[in-house]
């Protein structure tokens, strides 16, 4: 399985039909049925694809099974989407028109709207907790928590100095939230506490320092991407200083893994990296890069494993289909690319197409 994950290449059998007419900002695959792909575009369109393949097809173009009617669309582009973790009947989106919306999947209509009064860069809902709080990261320094049950804001987490670009819930502790912003800090919150911010990550691991010191910086430039490992022990952060940092989520220490100078990350939009650690060792991280690639690194020693090239625009988001070696990447060229491990079926060798044969003419012999 590890090996197959390391051998990802452009899928010969699947492709996602072009649905958006603007850059795609975010994709997410549900964790319940593991076959629905949500994609959000800058054309304020949201598409749902069924990526479960029918058997025995040559090249299957995955069609969009649902999309938002024009009258229900948001005013501006959708910045991020997330499935409700326990049911595919609901999903949440954040938009640049200052709102976080909750959608009914069956009717594709908004069920509930939270107005955050500033444009929302991203939102997150805890994948394990039953508290049903959606954290919205917006141009406002406060991180707002929206309660899906009541349809109202519960908290405002104050501490950041600028816009909050990225937000993630811990996959281990249901009350733990991590946010990163343009003030170059990554803050860890415990939403149960009155003084919610428990620490601000420090890239230099300064000894005996106050975990909330105002001099703590996680990157030298704004932070625009965050991801938790599935065991909740590690956090990956992407900064616009083109660095990737791996943090110990428990202690808040920088693990100082050097991922090299490969990443290109200069655009001020939230991007979605991915940690793949279920069933493979060493774990891989997939980082979307501005130079039209997805970079795959070994998470623990930082070596570059593979470059997934093929996209025609800046890659904004990657997601892996749970339980399969299938990776989906969305980019600004309006296309979602499917990456797959090569299949080793015996029938494949038979139907190796004629096109792959060499065709040297005989007159070049001598």
């Amino acid at each position: 399985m590890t090996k197959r994950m390391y051998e990802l290449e452009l899928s010969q059998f699947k492709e996602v039909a072009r649905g958006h007419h603007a850059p795609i900002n975010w994709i997410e695959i549900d964790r319940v049925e593991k076959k629905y792909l949500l994609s959000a575009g800058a054309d304020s369109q949201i598409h749902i694809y069924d990526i479960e393949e029918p058997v025995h097809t040559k090249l299957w173009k995955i069609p969009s099974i649902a999309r938002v009617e024009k009258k229900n669309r948001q005013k501006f582009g959708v910045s991020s989407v997330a499935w409700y973790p326990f049911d595919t009947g609901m999903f949440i989106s954040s938009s640049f028109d200052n709102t976080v919306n909750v959608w009914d999947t069956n009717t594709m209509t908004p069920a509930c709207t939270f107005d955050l009064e500033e444009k929302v860069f991203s939102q997150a809902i805890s994948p394990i907790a039953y508290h049903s709080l959606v954290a919205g990261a917006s141009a406002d320094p406060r991180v707002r928590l929206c309660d899906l049950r009541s349809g109202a804001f519960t908290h405002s987490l104050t501490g950041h100095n600028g816009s909050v670009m990225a937000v993630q819930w811990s996959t281990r502790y249901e009350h733990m939230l991590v946010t990163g912003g343009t003030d170059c800090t990554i803050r860890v919150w415990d939403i149960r506490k009155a003084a919610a911010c428990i620490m601000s990550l420090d890239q230099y691991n300064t000894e005996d320092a106050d975990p909330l010191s105002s001099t703590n910086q996680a990157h030298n430039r704004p932070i625009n991407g965050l991801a938790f490992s599935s065991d909740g022990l590690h956090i990956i952060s992407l900064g616009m200083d083109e660095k990737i940092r791996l943090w110990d989520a428990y202690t808040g220490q920088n693990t100082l893994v050097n991922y090299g100078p490969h990443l290109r990350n200069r655009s001020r939009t939230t991007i979605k990296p991915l940690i793949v650690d279920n069933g493979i060792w060493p774990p891989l991280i997939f980082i979307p890069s501005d130079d039209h690639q997805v970079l795959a690194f070994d998470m623990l020693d930082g070596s570059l494993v593979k470059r997934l090239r093929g996209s025609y625009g800046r890659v904004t988001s990657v997601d892996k289909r749970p339980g399969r070696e299938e990776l989906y990447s969305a980019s600004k060229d309006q296309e979602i690319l499917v990456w797959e491990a090569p299949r080793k079926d015996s029938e494949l060798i038979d139907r190796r197409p004629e096109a792959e044969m060499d065709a040297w003419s005989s007159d070049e012999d001598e």
Partner: protein
Amino acid sequence: MDVKAREHLASLINDITKTGEWTLDNEKLKEIKRICKKSEAFVEMSVELIFIQLGKKQAQIRYSALQLVEELFSRSHKFRQLIAEEFPQFLQLTIGIHQKSLPPPSNVASKLKEFAVALVKTWYEKYGESYRPLAIGYDYLISSGEANFEGSSLRDIRSRDTQRSQQDVRLKAINERRFQNIETQVADLKDDIQENLKNMESCFEILVPRFEAEQALDEERAAGETGKALSRGDAYKDNIMSHGLGSSRYTIEIDLSEGNVMEDVKESEDNEILFEKLRESYKIMTSKHLTKINEWLKNLVKIEYTDPAAKDDLLKAIISLKDEIRDATRKSALIGIDTQVENANKEANSDDEDDEDIDALFEEVEVPTLDEPSTSVASDKPSAVVKSKKLPPVQRVFPLAHEPHMAEDATYTSPLQAQIERTGRLRENSPSGNKGKQKADLQREELLKVAPVVEWGEDLYYWDKQDVQFNQSGLEYHHRFLGDGEGANKLSDETLQSLKMRAVYYNPQWPEKIKACRAPLRSGSLCPRRDLVTCPFHGPIIPRDEIGRPVDPKTKLPMVDLGEQETPEVEEDKDKSVFSSVKAAQPALWEQLENDVMRQQGLTPIESTKRGQKRKKEKAPSALIDVRKKAETRLTRLQRRLDDPRMKRIVEETLDHERSMKLRDKKANSWRGI
């Protein structure tokens, strides 16, 4: 891997893409294919090399590289894989996606894009299923609207390419043929034209007697230019006497204006045949030859011939013919043949228009009036002034000395030689001339021939004096302070020396007519600027031939017609500039020295051409358009001149000087500072 094979492949790919032609070189293509077939390593290498060529900022190179890609793509699976892997970059370089525009020249760039789009389409149809990146790229191109797939198909483009390259070859051949055609025509007709001209010339000679035949006129000239006249004293005297002139102080004016010729040469029964013949020749000349020549010139300028030297030679020959014809036309106009012919047939009008065109094209060159055949007038108008400004070399030192109006000036002493001559004449008049004296006179004459003619002055008086006495009255003068003299009453040596000196005031005279630069311009005409020494665009003004090429100073300098109107100093400048150009043409001094040393040591001297070639590699003929070359504009030319280090230095020096002068003035004006 074999380094040599790698280098070979690199040079092959480099060469094949740098021809700039629309089609690939077949031989080289085959060689590349042969190498690539050997192993996949070579294929990988070739992809790498091709991508380098595709990255060049010159659309023609990219076009050729793309053609190479097409060839290899259809053959090798490995090649296809590698290209597919780099497909986004490939599209970026050939179609120009991601806001990356294609490099100049723009016409080739558009063709490149068209070709690449057609190629992607065919690839997609054939290989789209097996190579996913191809399909994705194709999809991207469609959705982004960066390429129009409804354009021409690959077959169209390929046939267009071959067509275009064939057209190039054909055009070259046509030009060659045209040039040869003109060449033969010129060779055929040249004799005809020259014969015709000769006929006309001989007619003119009969009708209008040559100037040289007039002995009397020669003598009159001699009176003005005394240097020549001495040797023919007797004849001269007789002549003067026969014309009833007693002295040389008369001025003789000979009117040689062209207007007279018309009046004097009239058609009569005697010369009717001559006139008839002239008219006929004139007609042939204007109607047939001149039109032909104009036609040749027009065609020849248009043709881009491979050998410019041959073209220039031919052009020169034609232009010299044209000049001769123009000369003949002018002469016939003088005796009124052209009007007669025109009256005879009005069709000749078109030719005259051509003539006017020529006049507009070519600068009017004044033909020296003295050479003009003129008759009759000379002896009838004795009181005339010789108006020649062309002076014998010695007189150029003091040009004023021979201005005729000076002779009438009472304060003016005529040149020494004239005086001597006059005295000599007096002596001859007196019968008491013995033989010894005559011998001495002969010697004297010999000497006088070479002696310079100088205006009379004080210094000449003292010239041969050894000691000059003064105050010979015997009375003693006492000086108030210096007291008595020593009694020698002689001028001291220094004083005498200083008296022998002459102060000459240089009075520069600007030429009345400044010659044009006449360097060839790009438009085909000659530079009409008139500057004294240097044309700001074409450098020093040097004698040039009819088409503006500098006359080769070694062989043809004597035949250069230096303008009649020019004053000596301008001529000198010209000589200097010619000299400098000669120097530039000759090898540098160190080269000469080196050659000498080599020769002495028994080694063959290095040829200067070889030296140059060593540094500058012979460039292979290529149709590549130089995209880095900036267009030559007025601004760049001015900029170049401003950036000239010499110019900068001059400006700096001037500024420095001004500054220092200002400082000095400031110091001079501050009184209190001390």
